[in-house]
């Protein structure tokens, strides 16, 4: 099988626009099975817009985009999606098992009879993300990390080939961030799953990420962390001084990004492909 030769996502000269305004343009990249890609960039740069385009919820502004060998379409079962914030308050009374179950048959009409097969698929997905201990509790009462794992399980039950995760590490503590990052990395490798993970903080992902998709200044830079996370590239994208420190194990740490990350970037630099 030359599966690895077939890109999961293929973009050529792709641009995103919102209400007639170009968000970013000129993006060309291929993403392959088993790759864990971090999507980085400041707020408002158009990271979630990219995910919406891949899901078929928003049309490309210009250029060509192929997902799993065809144009993006809504409801593609081969794509698992975990959006950014879940609006569940403490009173939301539905169990994690039911939430994961939506991934199996939530979009099908009718009541759906109880089936052993569905119960087995759900239990397996919950076990795969290590959420069995709290899957029977109401999602409203779970912590951010616990919800994140259940939503991951929901996205996995359809055996997708592409996983889109929007800010899965936000509002998690450091230990949970590392755990979720390692879990996602393991899934990508074990299941030959292409993963696009939107984040504003690369540090917890440094050890596991394969390549970066860096959106800033109406453009996009694509490459390995070593190629993109350099003082030169980042300083140019952000139009400010950004320092990259390397520790003795070769891990890179970004310094001076916190301020920039919190504010929409107003620059007009075109995308740099590394």
């Amino acid at each position, binding site marked *: 099988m030359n599966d690895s030769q077939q890109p999961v996502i293929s973009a050529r000269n792709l641009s995103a626009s919102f209400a007639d305004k170009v968000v970013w343009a000129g993006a060309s990249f291929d993403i392959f099975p088993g790759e864990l890609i971090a999507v980085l960039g400041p707020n408002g740069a158009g990271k979630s817009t990219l995910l919406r385009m891949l899901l078929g919820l928003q049309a490309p502004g210009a250029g060509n985009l192929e997902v799993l060998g065809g144009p993006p379409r809504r409801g593609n079962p081969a794509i698992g*999606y975990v959006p950014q914030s879940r609006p569940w308050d403490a009173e939301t*009374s539905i*169990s994690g098992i039911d939430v994961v179950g*939506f991934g199996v048959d*939530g979009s099908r009409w*009718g009541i759906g009879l109880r089936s052993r097969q569905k119960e087995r698929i759900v239990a397996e997905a919950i076990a795969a993300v290590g959420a069995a201990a709290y899957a029977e509790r109401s999602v409203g009462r779970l912590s951010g990390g616990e919800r994140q794992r259940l939503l991951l399980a929901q996205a996995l039950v359809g055996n997708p080939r592409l996983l889109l995760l929007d800010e899965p590490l936000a509002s998690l503590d450091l230990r949970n961030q590392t755990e979720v990052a390692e879990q996602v990395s393991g899934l990508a490798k074990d299941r030959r799953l292409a993963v696009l993970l939107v984040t504003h903080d690369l540090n917890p992902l440094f050890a596991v990420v394969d390549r970066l998709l860096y959106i800033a200044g109406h453009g996009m830079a694509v490459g390995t962390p070593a190629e993109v996370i350099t003082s030169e590239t980042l300083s140019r994208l952000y139009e400010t001084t950004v320092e990259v420190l390397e520790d003795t194990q070769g891990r890179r740490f970004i310094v001076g990004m916190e301020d920039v990350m919190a504010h929409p970037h107003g620059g007009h630099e075109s995308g740099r492909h590394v």
Partner: protein
Amino acid sequence: MVGMKAGVMFSWNLFRDLQQVFSYGFMRNAFLAGTIVAILAGVVGYMVVLRRSSFAAHALSHIGFAGAAGAVVAGVSAVLGLLAFTLLAAAVMGSLGQKLRSRDTVIGIVLAWALGLGVLFLSLYKGYATEAYALLFGEILGISRLDVLVTFIAALVALAGIVVMYRPLLFSSIDEEVAEARGVPVRFISVAFMLTLALAVSAAVQVVGVLLIFSLIVTPAAIAERLSNRPSSAIYISVLLALAFTWIGLFISFYLPYPVSFFITTLAFGTYLVVRLGERRGRGR
């Protein structure tokens, strides 16, 4: 129709009591309509609570009041006015307001206008006092065979709607964004559910009236939601509670000279209170 019937006494022999209750045609009609409405309200109410659409249910019942008043002025059955107004308003609400916050604003705007219409209709209708009272507080003991039939058909349609869209409705109620990405037509579901709710509200108004609709549509479901986090069991609990409140309320009202609506709402509120207090005690341990 309210009050103690001549020569009828509660006997502690439940079998004989029930025999006596059901020997009256109006009691048979009331139990029939009450049962249909309770089942429908229990099922639809669970979705209302899950979707946080209580305000929509409240608004639809008041809009229905305007419709019923209009129908009475026009000389047709109040049920028809109820159905026409609630369905129309539901279609408007469902298609205009998608996000919860803007939805509540749209509902409020439609509601205010409809109540204005209701005032106009009431002023046009001369002998309005008893009719209006019945609409506001329910008059199940005076329900006619024809009303029972209309209620039955409305309930069948509404329940069929819930059955058909059960899974995507649950999914989009809990997580609209993912449901949409997974191909659930969330906008269509939203409108279709509002229409179903309009049918349920129209049916329930006849039992408990416009002002007390929460006691059948929201309270049983809210209790059920606290007792189970699995939708299938919660819906059963919700239906059983709505049935219990209605049946017991009707039964008591046969012997005591007070309105049925009072007994139903008190049973609902009392049960809710007991469950909340029980929870607190359970957590304190």
